[in-house]
């Protein structure tokens, strides 16, 4: 098959595939700007929500796991209940 492409041109090729699948290859430049900014805004929102909420969920899940493993601790978990 093809030789392994270098990293920047591989990323560019991946970007071209994204363009083809979402049909932004066919759009005029201002439509592309609109589409990409909408996508980036959605992605940013998703990442922010994940950053804010994930830490809390992960820590509470880890504490539950820790307590189930036989180290009962009187901690915030009983208050959370």
């Amino acid at each position, binding site marked *: 098959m093809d030789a392994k492409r270098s990293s920047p041109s591989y990323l560019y090729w991946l970007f071209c595939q994204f363009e*083809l699948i979402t049909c932004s290859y066919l759009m005029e430049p201002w439509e592309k700007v609109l589409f990409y900014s909408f996508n980036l805004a959605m992605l940013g929102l998703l990442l922010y929500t994940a950053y804010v909420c994930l830490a809390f969920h992960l820590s509470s899940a880890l504490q539950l796991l820790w307590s189930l493993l036989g180290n009962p601790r009187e901690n915030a978990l009983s208050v959370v209940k």
Partner: protein
Amino acid sequence: INHIVHNGALYKRPFNEAFEETPMLVAVLTYVGYGVLTLFGYLRDFMRHWKIEKCQNATEREEQKDFVPLYQDFENFYNRNLYMRIRDSWNRPICSVPGAKVDMMERVSHDYNWTFTYTGRVIKDVINMGSYNYLGFAQKTGPCQEAAAKVLSQYGAGVCSTRQEMGNLDKHEELEKLVARFLGVESAMTYGMGFATNSMNIPALVGKGCLILSDELNHASLVLGARLSGATIRIFKHNNMQSLEKLLRDAIVHGQPRTRRPWKKILILVEGIYSMEGSIVRLPEVIALKKKYKSYLYLDEAHSIGALGPGGRGVVEYFGLNPEDVDVMMGTFTKSFGAAGGYIAGKKELIDYLRTYSHSAAYATSMSPPVVEQIITSMKCIMGEDGTTIGRARVQQLAENTIYFRRRLKEMGFIIYGNEDSPIVPLMLYMPAKIGAFGREMLKRNIGVVVVGFPATPIIESRARFCLSAAHTKEMLDTALKEVNEVGDLLQVKYSRRRLVPLLDRPFDETTYEETED
């Protein structure tokens, strides 16, 4: 699903047809692409309506804005917002004879395909994979051209009359006798236009009180002729003999819808090769059904005449059947003979009836004499009556090209529809952006292909259609295959999930060993 029929009683050779299913991920992504384009289409329509953007498409006049809207249905929406974006892959002007290589005029668009301007440059020697030039008779030199030039200097170009009035030349009589001899039937009649042959003669054959059973994917000319005739039309699934038999049985048992009288005539409309799918009709089974249920068969051999069969006599010869079993054989001269026009052939009583009652004979201008001579010369060449074996060699070359090209494409991993022996090769693309991208990338690499989307195909099954020709040498095919491979990797259109094991006996590859490490 691969249909390899082992019914040795009807089929004398294996019937390999495959229509691989659309992969689920590809279908979902295609819908995503169409969804995005639809949203942007609504946005653009909104902007055009509120005059934020200049409206360049056709709209109603100011005074007519309160009437019933003309341009609000889906076809017009698709036209404005989706077709316009990829329009540069169609209607490309060519400026030479459409042989194996063709010259194209280069054009650019500065306002996203609403208008085009010619740069003045001519793209030379584009490998032509789009013309219906199956036997390579689209030539500007050679015996056909010389004969046509001689007839042009003798008869002129125009006939200035219809067949029934003063337009019946001796050349037409000669051509009709030749066509009848070529097909192995009693008599034939020719018309100036292939589309008009279907649409004007089916109304002369059937009328109200008759039943037409037509295949799902029949050509627009057959559909138009069927609708114009006024008969009842029922559709059976594409190439599906169980569906056809069920319809026949229902028709005979129940008769006409309200009165329950028996149908006056039952006519089955099928095509030899379907041009969008590349599939070949299951003719032995259709003829067996026709004989069992006493109906008539109308076979449209537009693409298969000259292209199938060891002698180029079409799909009837390909299956080894008797031409007298088919009641009405229709075909066109546009595809394999390098001319224009159509014919209908069959029993003498049928053709004599059509000479009087066909709309095309009474109202359409008859064929131009140089075109008639081109058909006569090319048909004699195929039959071998001009003393050479060029015709036979061309038919064989087309068959070899077909098998080689199809096998190589399948090995590369593309989804190819259709029968193994049909010279029409549809390569599935599915996504709308890839339609435009494929056409443009192939033209950059000097290969001209035809890409097809909605409404000629279902909306997610868009494809690129290759038409092979006897004029393509194996070097041209190898070049084309290399470029298709490259573009396929670039665009990621190799969707097939069944990789065929490449056969080691490639009879045409003595000089192309360097191509094997793909």
